[in-house]
């Protein structure tokens, strides 16, 4: 089992450009999470999906960020346009979805906006 897969692992773009991140969760996991981790901070939840439904997107900056999980499996997080302050690590995680379930994290995508 490869675990949670994320791509790309690294991305460097210029400000105002669009960028997209992809995540494939562990097979059978209904719940998928996107987190933002700034340097020296813990991860912060951006959005949580249960199957195809975004059940918590309260922390997602909707003016520039969007996400989708069309078939309830893999997911894409997009930023358009990117700003300098978006430089961070974007983490994807998945779980079976119950509150006490372990969340399994991917390796993350390190985004640098120049």
């Amino acid at each position, binding site marked *: 089992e490869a675990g949670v897969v994320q791509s790309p692992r690294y991305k460097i773009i210029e400000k105002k450009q669009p960028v997209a991140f992809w995540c494939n969760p562990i097979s059978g996991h209904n719940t998928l999470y996107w987190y933002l981790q700034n340097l020296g901070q*813990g991860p912060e939840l951006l959005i949580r999906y249960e199957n195809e439904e975004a059940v918590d997107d309260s922390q997602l900056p909707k003016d520039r960020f969007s996400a989708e999980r069309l078939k309830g499996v893999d997911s894409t997080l997009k930023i358009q346009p990117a700003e300098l302050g978006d430089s961070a690590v974007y983490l994807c995680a998945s779980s079976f979805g119950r509150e*006490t379930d*372990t*969340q399994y994290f991917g390796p993350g995508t390190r985004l640098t906006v120049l």
Partner: protein
Amino acid sequence: AQRVTQPEKLLSVFKGAPVELKCNYSYSGSPELFWYVQYSRQRLQLLLRHISRESIKGFTADLNKGETSFHLKKPFAQEEDSAMYYCAPTLRGKLIFGQGTELSVKP
């Protein structure tokens, strides 16, 4: 507001010394409590959860509801324990991570 505080950014101990990583939380309701760990060049992963009452890699965590704390302890630190540790209460499925404590165990 829900808040998690890990007061130490860096904790440095010698091998064989006891270690305690502090975590205080401010929550309405009764959250489930977790510790996650990230070793160098590895993914963030679960270390232990309060509900399991288990000891993982010699670590235990005691919940003190009166003090709203969930400190992580190990009686004898090992060099391989060097990592970033995150306290993470969860409420209604939402993990709230602390800022993390970097544990450095020196030989």
